């Protein structure tokens, strides 16, 4: 076994065997699965029935029974007073709340709409509140229209929903496009790369600091070159990241499918689970999401997955080597902050810009940032689902590879000097000087 292989093996095994790795690797998918399943599961759960006692003096609600979840029970306005229904809500658990719609003196709809009151024990559920208020809003609007002599049917007949089809004519074959799923794929992959770089970049840094403070580093570099140790470490940690990521993907999808099969049975097919998160219960929206799923087929997944791996590893190598250099230059993690900040600014910038890509993927700023190696791993991934000309993609990749070579070279120089320096926190000027020390 080569010496780098021995180092990679140790770096890998020592992390993978840790309890914290095991826990995070197992707990992660459960959390992800909950995030994926929860919204649709919650929607499918039968809601509690809530009975609202209504004192509707102007008879605005037409004795409407409400919905399955929110049922209206009417108190006769001739027999009941506000105080009486208040008392009933206070004493009778059967009623969730009491709703008071006053008639006022003139039965003026504007007066009524301002004076509707809920009486309840504690807070009123937001869903209930919004259901009731939108129901009343509709009733009052219709009432006003009638007063003005307009038939409400006329108005609802005139309402129009506009849906625009997007046709991409850039390719020979015209195809229908949709930005939604592309946004989701772009955002998710950009964000995952950001996450990976941060977690595993700082893992490399901590590991370098640990070796330095443990004082084991000099023992090791009397057997291997500092550069070998650095590379072995970066590669070992990368493998840990890839392992964790792979387990997450497999376990998360496993759990999501298993849980949805068991609990949700035939009610939903797993595919619409993803869509479920966006469902508002509104048929129009869900129809849109289902077409959205069809559009997913239009994204070039083989390209995206291979680019994801490339930028995933490339971004990590670029930042990981910087973080290793930072770790070698300091004696403790607290000292590292000063150097970590400038290194992480481009990453944070990328995440801020990521939001803008979603609305405007073709802007010049974003095109430039998807070329600049420090931001390209995140920005290019987010752009990719929207379609990126191949020459641009290749240029971005070439620049990233060049930047990795440069950063590894710089990191190697700083590292081999830094690991043997104790005590004083170096300045940037000193770090620069270290680049030119002879080996």
């Amino acid at each position, binding site marked *: *076994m080569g*010496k780098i292989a*021995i*180092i990679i093996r*140790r770096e890998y095994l*020592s992390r993978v065997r840790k309890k914290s790795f095991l826990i995070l690797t197992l707990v992660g998918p459960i959390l992800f699965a909950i995030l994926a399943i929860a919204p649709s599961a919650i929607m499918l759960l039968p809601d509690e029935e809530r009975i609202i006692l209504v004192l509707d003096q102007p008879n605005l609600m037409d004795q409407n029974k409400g919905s399955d979840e929110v049922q209206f029970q009417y108190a006769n306005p001739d027999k009941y007073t506000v105080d009486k229904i208040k008392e009933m809500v206070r004493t009778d658990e059967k009623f969730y709340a009491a709703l008071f719609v006053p008639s006022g003196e003139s039965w003026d709809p504007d007066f009524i709409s301002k004076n509707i009151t809920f009486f309840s024990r504690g807070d009123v559920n937001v869903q209930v509140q919004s259901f009731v208020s939108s129901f009343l809003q509709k009733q009052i609007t219709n009432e006003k229209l009638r007063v003005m002599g307009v038939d409400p049917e006329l108005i609802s007949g005139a309402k129009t929903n506009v849906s625009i089809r997007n046709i991409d004519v850039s390719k020979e074959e015209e195809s229908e496009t949709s930005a939604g799923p592309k946004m989701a794929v772009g955002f998710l992959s950009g964000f995952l790369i950001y996450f990976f770089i941060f977690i595993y970049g700082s893992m490399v840094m901590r590991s370098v600091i*640990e*070796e330095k403070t*443990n*004082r*084991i580093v*000099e*023992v*090791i*570099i*009397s*057997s*291997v070159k*500092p550069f070998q140790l650095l590379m072995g470490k970066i590669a070992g940690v990368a493998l840990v990241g890839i392992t964790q990521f792979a387990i997450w993907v497999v376990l998360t999808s496993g759990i999501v499918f298993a849980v949805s099969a068991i609990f949700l049975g035939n009610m939903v097919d797993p595919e619409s689970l993803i869509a479920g998160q966006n469902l508002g219960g509104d048929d129009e929206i869900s129809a849109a999401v289902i077409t959205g799923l069809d559009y997913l087929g239009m994204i070039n997944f083989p390209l995206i997955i291979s680019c994801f791996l490339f930028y995933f590893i490339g971004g990590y190598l670029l930042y990981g080597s910087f973080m290793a250099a930072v770790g070698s230059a300091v004696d403790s993690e607290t000292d590292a902050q000063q150097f970590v900040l400038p290194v992480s600014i481009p990453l944070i910038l990328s995440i801020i810009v990521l939001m803008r890509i979603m609305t405007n993927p073709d802007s010049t700023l974003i095109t430039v940032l998807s070329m600049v190696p420090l931001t390209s791993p995140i920005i290019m991934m987010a752009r990719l689902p929207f379609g990126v000309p191949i020459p641009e993609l290749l240029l971005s990749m070439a620049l990233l590879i060049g930047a990795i070579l440069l950063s590894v070279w710089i990191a190697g120089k700083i590292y081999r000097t830094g690991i*043997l320096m*104790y005590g004083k926190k170096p300045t940037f000027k000193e770090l620069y*000087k270290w680049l030119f*020390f*002879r*080996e």
Partner: protein
Amino acid sequence: MLAIDCKGVQKRYGDKTVLQDIDLSVERGKIFGLLGPNGAGKTTLIRIINQITGPDKGEVYFFGEKLRRAHISRVGYLPEERGLYRKMKVGEQALYLAQLKGMKSAEAKKKLKYWFEKFDIINWWDKEVESLSKGMAQKVQFIVTVLHEPDLLIFDEPFSGFDPVNANLIRDEILEINQKGTTILFSTHRMESVEELCESIALIHESKVLVQSPLRALKDSYRDHSWEVEWTGEVLPSAFPEGVVLKSINERGDSRNLLFTVASDTLLPELISTMLKSGTVYGMREKLPTLQEIFIERVTEKKV
């Protein structure tokens, strides 16, 4: 044959010269002391021999060959800053370090077991390093330094941080390994700690070799025929042989240390019999300056 031969070695860090024209030769099979105060450049020189860093100028020969990467497995190095991974199991870690030195796993394991038994730490093989006492950790560090049976062993500040029992144990092991033909290089600023072990020494001061010599010859050059006699008795002899002068008397508890200078060593038997007539003689030795004293003298000499 020379184990190490440095010719005109020079090293600078930025505008700071750490080593300047270092010529140094260590004979094969000997115990050599590289001595000097902190910051003199000892550690840098050792790192050059270890190929942790390289010289800006000059050359280093290792057993007659120009120093190259392959030699690394023939050197064992216990640095001044020595440590272990705290969260790793003891045996696993020792095996890892041995493999990095180029040993095969099976062979390394066999030898490690032997050493662990010898040092009575075999029960800690599967424990985490954290659980070791400092003395045990030092034993582990020593074992992984010598395990691959290198031709040259380098110890930087070997006895600092060792408790007396372990320091003795380690010293005896080093001497035994030396008996088998391994060249030993000690580097320390605590000159008295290796004085009795070294056959040759080099004094390094401010990036330069101040003096390099076999220890005996160096000390002999400082001979001034002073002898110290440890003696008890009621009354000092009234007269000493001709050519013997009493320089000073040091009371030490019940006994007294008398310092004489003699015109010639042939007068010594006569001196002893004189002393014996009036008391008991416990010991007699030539008073030579310690390395520390020689070093200080050389340093001040230079300045003058």
